[in-house]
């Protein structure tokens, strides 16, 4: 049994240093690892990232993985922001994965920011203007990279897919339907089902709901802070119960670090 803390859409600014430190200080009391589902900063500024990174440095020895979100790209300084979190010990994932030994359990986390396009039956197509093709191809390229990563993860006892954008419609309930194509893409749910991960986490949808499932039955949790209305959510997973929700989680793939 392992306990995972997870939160997204922290939108950390330079005006919340004490609040951020208090928010994360209790994570070791509740969880074995921490997963950050993007939009870690408000404007994608290095000085904002430093505030959160300092709070995470206090969690010495705790396994932490994260992905960036759209807010973290706002100032075109995403590489610098990513490096700041990495320097604080966060495994930053963009089509990569990490494997942790937590007690006797091997836990694999694969992650990517994800992107938009929409959902099965109404996904955007790479047709027409170059801008439209570029939009769809960005999502597909991220999914393809993640697919390759998931194929290599086969020795873990548990596996988690960490995203910023949503993989299913269900957790968007409450958001205007007009913006669904900008909130996520079914391509990542399809990957979760194909590779039989145990849990999918995402953020981005502030007006959505926490709980959903992929079409194949894998649990999806929207951990946007505005949705969970607490510093982080805590999920427990037991390798002995693998596949009970998704009709047989397949062999999970071996992990590779970026």
């Amino acid at each position: 049994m392992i306990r995972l803390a997870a939160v997204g859409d922290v939108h950390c600014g330079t005006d919340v240093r004490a609040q951020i430190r208090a928010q994360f200080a209790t994570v070791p009391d509740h969880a074995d690892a921490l997963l950050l589902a993007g939009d870690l900063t408000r404007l994608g500024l290095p000085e904002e990232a430093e505030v959160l990174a300092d709070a995470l440095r206090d969690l010495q020895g705790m396994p932490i993985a994260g992905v960036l979100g759209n807010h973290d790209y706002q100032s075109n300084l995403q590489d610098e922001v990513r490096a700041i979190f990495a320097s604080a010990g966060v495994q930053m994932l963009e089509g990569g994965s990490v494997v942790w030994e937590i007690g006797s359990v091997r836990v694999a986390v694969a992650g990517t920011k994800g992107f938009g396009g929409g959902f099965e039956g109404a996904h955007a197509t790479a047709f027409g203007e170059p801008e439209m093709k570029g939009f769809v191809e960005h999502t597909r390229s991220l999914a393809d990279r993640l697919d390759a990563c998931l194929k290599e993860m086969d020795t873990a006892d548990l596996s988690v897919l960490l995203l910023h954008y949503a993989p299913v419609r269900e957790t968007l309930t409450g958001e205007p339907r007009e913006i669904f194509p900008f909130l996520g893409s079914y391509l990542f749910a399809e990957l979760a089902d194909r590779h039989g991960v145990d849990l999918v986490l995402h953020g981005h949808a502030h007006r959505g709901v926490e709980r959903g499932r992929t079409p194949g039955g894998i649990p999806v949790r929207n951990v946007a802070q505005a949705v969970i209305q607490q510093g982080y959510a805590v999920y427990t997973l037991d390798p002995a119960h693998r596949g009970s929700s998704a009709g047989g989680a397949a062999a999970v793939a071996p992990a590779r670090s970026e």
Partner: protein
Amino acid sequence: MSEPRYEQERIRQALATDPRVGEPELSVDVVAGRVLVTGSVPSEKVREAIGTVVAEVAPGVSLDNRASVASTDEPSGEETIT
């Protein structure tokens, strides 16, 4: 106020892109002639900046700022994933 729907969207765009707020996830509606802003913001400073930005983009409008600061409380429980 000019055509309310255009004004509404102009305010929404400003709240998304003005760095004092920078929150594209906020909702903006016009209700009975008042601009209603709802959603979650990360701090009281950002919440207050909503009023500043709206006053600059749409001078003279009546603002009902119901944006709230997201809770960062310690979790009260956990969920077992099955």
